């Protein structure tokens, strides 16, 4: 039992990038343990998906023709049956919103441990998983001394596997008990468009929880105006209703790649970074020199935004509103 089983992720007809990252992580782990990498794809156009997924490093691909879209009740049952067939030591799943909607249930059903949001996996026995804590301020090593386990991997931590593969593609007949399917996906909804598309901007002035109060938003509005830039934000600002949803940068907001991204009072949580790490130049204004955003920044000011932003507005001939 040294094999690894990974399950690909797709949505509305397309495989998601993390599927290929699972192959890279899974191959690494399988090699370290001297086993094979099995990959399964469940639902949708499984044959077309299998063709796309047949990249370097995959030994077997199981196509499971069950439904169109993700449904956790189906996925849990299929995962369990695949595990009985393949007997892997590790089930590798994405730490995506859907991954987290079924991975813990699979682990619980099998009675095996789960470690989520892995950023590193070392293959020695016992398995060592690297993951972050305290808002990415520290890393931890988690040792799992068990013959079988479930691990979910953070997206973009591993490169996506490429190249031509030579996997053995097999169709797998799952036996789904419909009485155990107690949820129904009825559709999808796109978050509203609104007045601006922050993805179009050359310069983004992006504000985070460091702004502290709704009244202070005028300060960054004024800066955006002085720079002729567009205002965006991290999630808590939108959750609080201080800016509309179409201003949110990140995993559940927009992905932006401006020439300059000025992060003001933003810590740099992984879900935020997912939306802005492709920016050409990143500037961080943050009182905390250890905030994770500094790891990404090209330029940093470790100072109070309430001092720096007014000075910056004045530099461009504006007047600070606070």
């Amino acid at each position, binding site marked *: 039992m040294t094999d690894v089983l990974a399950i690909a992720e797709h949505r509305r007809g397309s495989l998601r990038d993390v599927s290929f990252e699972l192959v890279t992580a899974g191959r690494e782990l399988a090699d370290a343990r001297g086993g094979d990498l099995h990959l399964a794809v469940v639902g949708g156009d499984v044959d077309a998906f299998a063709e796309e997924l047949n990249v370097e490093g995959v030994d077997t691909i199981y196509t499971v023709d069950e439904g169109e879209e993700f449904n956790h009740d189906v996925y849990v049952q299929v995962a369990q049956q695949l595990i009985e067939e393949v007997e892997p030591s590790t089930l590798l799943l994405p*730490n995506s919103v859907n991954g*987290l909607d079924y991975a813990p249930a699979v682990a619980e059903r099998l009675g095996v441990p*789960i470690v989520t949001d892995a950023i590193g996996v070392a293959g020695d026995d016992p398995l060592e998983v690297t993951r972050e*804590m305290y808002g990415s301020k520290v890393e931890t090593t988690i040792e799992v001394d068990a013959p079988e386990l479930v691990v979910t991997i953070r997206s973009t931590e591993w490169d996506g596997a490429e190249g031509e593969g030579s996997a053995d593609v097999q169709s797998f007949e799952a036996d789904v008990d419909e009485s155990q399917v107690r*949820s129904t996906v009825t559709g999808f*909804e796109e978050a509203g468009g609104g007045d601006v598309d922050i993805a179009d901007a050359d310069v983004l002035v992006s504000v985070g929880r460091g702004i502290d109060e709704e009244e202070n938003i005028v300060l960054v509005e004024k800066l955006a105006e002085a720079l002729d*830039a567009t205002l965006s934000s991290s999630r808590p600002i939108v*959750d609080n209703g201080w800016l509309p949803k179409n201003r949110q940068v990140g995993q559940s907001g927009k992905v932006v790649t401006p020439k300059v991204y000025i992060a003001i009072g933003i810590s740099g949580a992984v879900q935020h970074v997912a939306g802005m790490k492709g920016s050409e130049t990143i500037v961080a204004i943050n009182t905390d020199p250890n905030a994770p955003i500094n790891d990404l920044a090209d330029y940093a000011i470790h100072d109070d935004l309430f001092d720096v932003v007014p000075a910056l507005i004045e530099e461009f*001939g504006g007047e600070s509103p606070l």
Partner: protein
Amino acid sequence: MKILVTVKEVAEAEDDFEIDGLDIDERYLEYDLNEWDDYAVEEAVSIAEEGDDVEVVSVTVGPERAEETVRMALAKGVDRAIRVWDDDLATAEMLDVGAKADILAAVVEEEDPDLVFTGVQANDDAFGATGVALAETIGFEWAAVVNRLDLDVEGGVASVHRELEGGVDELTDVETPAVLTIQTGINEPRYASLRGIRQAQRKPLDVKELGDYGLDSSVLETPVSRTAMYVPETESDATVFEGDAEETAGQLADLLRDKGVVEG
């Protein structure tokens, strides 16, 4: 109807901190109600306010210190609170997902709620797995990362939006009883009123031991252990602008002009 809300007191590290062994030194940790749980509490309390005869019970696995956080949930409208703690829990090295699910499952069995709300994740260790693991353990249906909820109590259906990546919501009908993991932004958590805070002092807060639920320390046994904690080598190659605010703002202004992205 009864709604059980899981509430965790989480630790947040100060800007400057030191690691002591396998965790951040106590002195540099501040404790607060988990951000996601605040939204879960609000969702439950607002359902109770709209409906007749809805009881909201919170459950926390945590030390006495956590009572401050629990009282805050009571002040916001939770009717009754349970805190599970004993010597075995106090000396456990790590509560892994399975252990948390088993303990909470025992509470669910005793309380028999119609709905369980948890936060999507806890701020501190961000495992994001407890709610779904709990659902499986107790045989409830579930939905993870819920940012909208319409409840049809009589029909036994929770119609939810699950917030996927990239600004897309998945619309799903979930049979109840169910566990929903609640995402930030689903509502606007209230501040505790002074009256609420006064009332909270008189609301029941029961402290339970594992034994009260027929569990013993074996529920805490786990093959999962934390063996190291460290501050990662900084990947930062940022140019840090030094000086007072006027100086740093001046340097940043020069940079922006050099890049040709601003005028003036």
